[in-house]
């Protein structure tokens, strides 16, 4: 009989591997995904479908971060005891053919959770000790995890204690926190970043009634809007992908006016909202993308992102009952760029972007006219934009040929501010200060 070489992973190696590449923020969002999955199951159970206004009404999750402790609590139905024993703490999804006949768990319709790793990974990444308490209307359980003890033990299982059913929901408490995590999660800018990510990336769920609290404050959803009017209308097309049956919807257009020429190098506010979004089953997988994961390519047939394109926003929605057909990766915060369903959509996303690129080039020659037109366009929530296949942008009438000259010179910032103040607005753009002073000289000194 052939001899065997042992190939079991050590637990410590395993824990390091699964937590290595994930940020704390992503772990927190993973836990939020689990809460949402619970809510989706409940909604599907009660109403059969998630395609309803306010489908998530009544469901909430609350994140509490204190010194050396992290807690997420929800009322999203809880984890059934059988599921907890056979599935919820499993690393990966149990396969009935391989894992001794463990029954497959039916996935929630539109499930955003897919790989059965989020909760454990979050626990290992954030906490040294964890307590998971979950209750359905039928029963409840508690699991206490001491990460370093568990790493040393031989058993690939966690001790689970059954207890009396309480209000349905799950509470995960991590305390004390892992090394270097406490400082990070308690930094005000980290909390603000998580807040902004939740507001933006869970916007569609929150708009459907799901509530997320951080401490005592409720997170308001970011409102995606595109501008209509004055010759602008966003692209809005939808189709069913023939190979996969995935429903694809693309909306793209002007979210805000592009920057003035000359100010493109300055830090613009809200650029964190410009670019392409990919949304799978209401979950924003990549947000405000400005690189080759979406349309922007380096040296390819399509231009790479340039600050000149700021103001553009495009959203590509992918929806399917079967989450495995959607173009996303295990973290659910990245897309699978090689997925054919995504490749096919990308071609249409490029078409929608092309018009905007051309417009931002064209407007340089008609800046004043363009700004006036842009002001006429008003923000419309993306839900309410009119159905029109191609993005449309204003065209400019060719002006009678006047030969123009560009002036470019530098002055000290102090001098510029002084002149701007004298002109009545110390925050005037540099360009306008130049134009106004030139005009003044021309009016006063030139016949």
């Amino acid at each position, binding site marked *: 009989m052939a001899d065997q070489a042992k190939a079991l992973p050590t637990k410590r190696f395993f824990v390091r591997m699964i937590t290595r590449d994930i940020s704390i923020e992503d772990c927190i969002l993973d836990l939020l995904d689990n809460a949402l999955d619970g809510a989706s199951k409940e909604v599907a159970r009660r109403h059969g479908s998630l395609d309803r206004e306010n489908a998530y009404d009544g469901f909430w999750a609350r994140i509490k971060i204190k010194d050396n402790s992290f807690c997420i609590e929800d009322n999203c139905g809880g984890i059934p005891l059988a599921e907890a024993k056979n599935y919820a703490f499993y690393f990966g999804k149990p396969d009935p053919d391989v894992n001794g006949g463990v029954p497959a768990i039916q996935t929630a319709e539109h499930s955003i959770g897919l790989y059965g790793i989020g909760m454990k990974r979050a626990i290992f990444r954030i906490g040294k000790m964890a307590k998971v308490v979950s209750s359905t209307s039928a029963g409840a359980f508690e699991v206490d995890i001491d990460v370093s003890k568990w790493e040393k033990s031989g058993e690939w299982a966690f001790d689970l204690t059954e207890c009396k059913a309480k209000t349905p929901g799950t509470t995960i408490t991590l305390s004390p926190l892992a090394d270097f995590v406490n400082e990070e999660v308690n930094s*005000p*800018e980290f909390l*603000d970043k998580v*807040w902004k990510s939740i507001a933006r990336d869970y916007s569609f769920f929150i708009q459907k009634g799901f509530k997320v609290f951080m401490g005592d404050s409720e997170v308001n959803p970011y409102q995606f809007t595109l501008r209509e009017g004055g010759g602008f209308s966003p692209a809005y097309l939808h189709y069913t992908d023939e190979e996969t049956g995935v429903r694809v919807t693309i909306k793209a257009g002007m979210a805000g006016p592009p920057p003035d020429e000359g100010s493109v190098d300055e*830090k613009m506010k809200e650029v964190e909202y410009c670019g392409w979004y990919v949304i799978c089953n209401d979950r924003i997988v990549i947000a405000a993308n400005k690189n080759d994961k979406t349309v922007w390519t380096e040296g390819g047939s399509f231009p790479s992102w340039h600050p000149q394109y700021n103001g553009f926003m495009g959203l590509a929605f992918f929806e399917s009952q079967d989450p495995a057909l959607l173009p996303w990766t295990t973290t659910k915060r990245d897309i699978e760029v090689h997925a054919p369903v995504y490749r096919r959509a990308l071609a249409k996303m490029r078409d929608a972007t092309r018009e905007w690129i051309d417009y931002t080039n064209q407007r340089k020659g008609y800046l004043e006219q363009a*700004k006036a037109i842009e002001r006429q366009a008003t923000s419309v929530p993306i839900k309410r934009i009119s159905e029109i296949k191609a993005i449309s942008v204003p065209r400019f009438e060719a002006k009678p040929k006047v030969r123009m000259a560009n002036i470019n010179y530098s002055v000290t910032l102090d001098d510029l*501010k002084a002149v701007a103040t004298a002109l009545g607005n110390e*925050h005037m753009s540099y360009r306008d200060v130049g134009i106004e002073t030139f005009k003044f000289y021309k009016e006063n000194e030139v016949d």
Partner: protein
Amino acid sequence: MAGNSFDVVNYSVRPNKNVERKLLAESLAALAPQFNISDYRYVGFGSMWFTDFALFHRTLQISDMISIEGGGEDAVRRAEFNRPHTCICVLGGYSTEVLASAIEDKKRSIVWLDYDKGPGEAPAEEDIEIFFRHASSGSIVMFSMNAHGERIRLRKDTGKGFKPRLEGLKDLLKHLVPSWVKEDDLKNETYPSTLARIFLDHMKSIPVRLGRTVKFIPLYNIYYRDGAPMITVGGMLCDKSDETTLTSLNLDKRFFYIGEEPQLRIEVPHLTPKEKILIDCTVPYNLRNDCKMIGLDGLGPNDGMENAPISREMLEQYVKFHRYFPYYAEVI
């Protein structure tokens, strides 16, 4: 405070600023000897007057001092002529250019960047980042900046009317504006504490972002006004051991002006020498009875204010800060 002409400040004397300087000096002195303050370096904007330098040299015995002077070569020459002590080195250049070289040699420092400008105009964000990258544990940083609400009331791009203040603040501070800030936090009365909150939170977050194992412990959140409303925020950069030492000093219990919240307001009243001398006789004793005794009755709480020569609010502000109240006299 009332808008009467006798309440309008003689800007050159700036009594509130004067009080603030003394508060800072007193609390910094309280850090010694645990923190060996006399061995620190002081870095500030001495201008031509060096008021803070002279005070800190005198009260903290610091003799390694650097004044950053961004006014060009002529200003540097004039500053060198005016420096009150030869231990002050005038370093020409903008803070953003030279601050790193002033603190990067691992010596502990007290850095007070007393800008006269507001956010977006003063390079506060850049300078804060430089400080947190280079300063060693035990170092102290303080930033003063203009907190006039009108400064974030910017004109719309069309030139007609004004943008909401939140828009204006985002134009000036960009990504630094956190999501909790609402229009109501930016009224003239609320803006100074909002601005301080934003910068204190920012300073607490930077060490983590820079991967430094030190922590920023806030000590100062002060509002004062001699003309333009100003705020000063600051604190100490601490590793574990400095944090333990700092905590053991109980500064927040010993000094009413130390702490992150609420914002301290320095609004000292302008008293005549006669008023001042009389009130000085009463503090810190039983204000009500003593006032009666010396003929200032009507000044105490619920004590027939209609007869009071000065308001209760003025009196309270004075009593709070009387130990730091400046004396001004003409010297011949």
